[in-house]
């Protein structure tokens, strides 16, 4: 989140990145664990840096040659620091003939694919109000952030939508993994037992519903209403536009800095069309446990 709004909003840095580097974006929690060529290559590079304990996060910005030699690393988000790291890496880099790596058989535990015959839905969320005003640039970025995730819908769930039904599995997936405040970082997802109330109905293409989510201690809660429209053509959902809006309370370990008390949070859902680079990214809720995310009962 911070990187998108700070590091990668610097036009000079972006120009360098586009012309002198091959840019790649990854969730290193996958690559540092996966047992395949992709994982091996990542560990080769990251292992030369300061974050070489693969049982812990190795997040950061790396520059490496195609031979896997580390040329630079920083975990600083200031664009000046990153540009300097890039400049030094280019100075060190000596182009030469390097063999192309083969992908081989990808580790299936870390290569989730959207369900065949299903749907990908874009999910965006924003805190609508409640923050205290601040002059701090980093806080301002968080406070104005719009999050981005994807909802995966299975073939069976799409077929049910076509019939005018929202299967309980889809309702629970939306509630547990997507009615979250992920505007300041990786959010805690809801456990099944934290769904206190959940109702969604679909009639004549209009989706309506309510959800009440709350931890046992009550330190985190979201009470939301959902409203939207679906269209179906030739047995497929061609429009899925839904918004959830309601009162959120609390924060998670990696989403500190929420407004005090209850604050309004909106979450929008719209069918992905493949034009956004993020349309192909697995849902955050599927991370490391796609079976639980896509559970069918």
């Amino acid at each position, binding site marked *: 989140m911070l990187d998108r709004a700070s590091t990668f909003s610097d036009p000079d840095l972006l120009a360098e990145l586009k012309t002198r580097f091959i840019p790649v974006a990854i969730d290193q929690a996958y690559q540092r664990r996966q047992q395949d060529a992709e994982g091996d290559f990542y560990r080769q590079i990251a292992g030369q840096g300061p974050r070489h304990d693969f049982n812990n996060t190795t997040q950061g910005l790396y520059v490496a040659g195609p031979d896997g030699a580390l040329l630079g690393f920083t975990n600083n988000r200031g664009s000046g620091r990153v540009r300097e790291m890039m400049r030094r890496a280019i100075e060190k880099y000596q182009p030469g003939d390097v063999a192309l790596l083969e992908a081989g058989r990808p580790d299936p535990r870390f290569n989730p694919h959207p369900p065949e015959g299903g749907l990908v839905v874009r999910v965006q969320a924003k805190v609508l109000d409640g923050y205290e005003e601040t002059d701090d640039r980093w806080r301002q970025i968080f406070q104005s952030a719009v999050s981005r995730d994807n909802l995966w819908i299975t073939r069976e769930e799409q077929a049910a939508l076509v019939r005018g039904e929202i299967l309980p599995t889809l309702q629970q997936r939306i509630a547990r993994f997507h009615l979250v405040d992920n505007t300041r970082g990786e959010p805690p997802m809801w456990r099944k037992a934290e769904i206190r109330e959940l109702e969604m109905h679909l009639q004549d293409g209009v989706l309506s519903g309510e959800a009440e989510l709350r931890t046992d201690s009550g330190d985190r809660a979201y009470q939301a209403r959902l409203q939207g429209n679906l269209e179906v053509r030739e047995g497929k959902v061609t429009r899925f536009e839904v918004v959830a809006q309601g009162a959120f309370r609390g924060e998670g370990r990696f989403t500190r800095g929420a407004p005090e008390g209850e604050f309004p949070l909106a979450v929008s859902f719209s069918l992905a*069309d493949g034009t956004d680079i993020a349309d*192909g990214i*697995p849902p955050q809720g599927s991370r490391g446990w796609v079976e639980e995310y896509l559970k069918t009962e």
Partner: protein
Amino acid sequence: MQVIPVENMTTSLIPPITPWILPRLFPCLLAAGLCLMARPLPAEVKEGALQAFEQACRTSMNEPWRSVPWKVSLIEAQNLAARERKPIFIWAMDGHPLGCT
């Protein structure tokens, strides 16, 4: 993690009409908002908040970082880097940098 490039997704995952999503989402969103506002809301929402959400969502889809031709596979990046004799820039985060948060 190797993510299916969107262009390689099975066609059934991609709706047949592409450019209308955002323009059509937000009238729906506003209508939904008006509908929701007809009933008491669990948290106070200032007038114009939903419109601001609409604008923020639109703006976020045009942020500068999206103009970068990010690869999502290190192996693909390595192959391209070897062919073009360029270094690889790796944006490695907790949670996918292009989405998730």
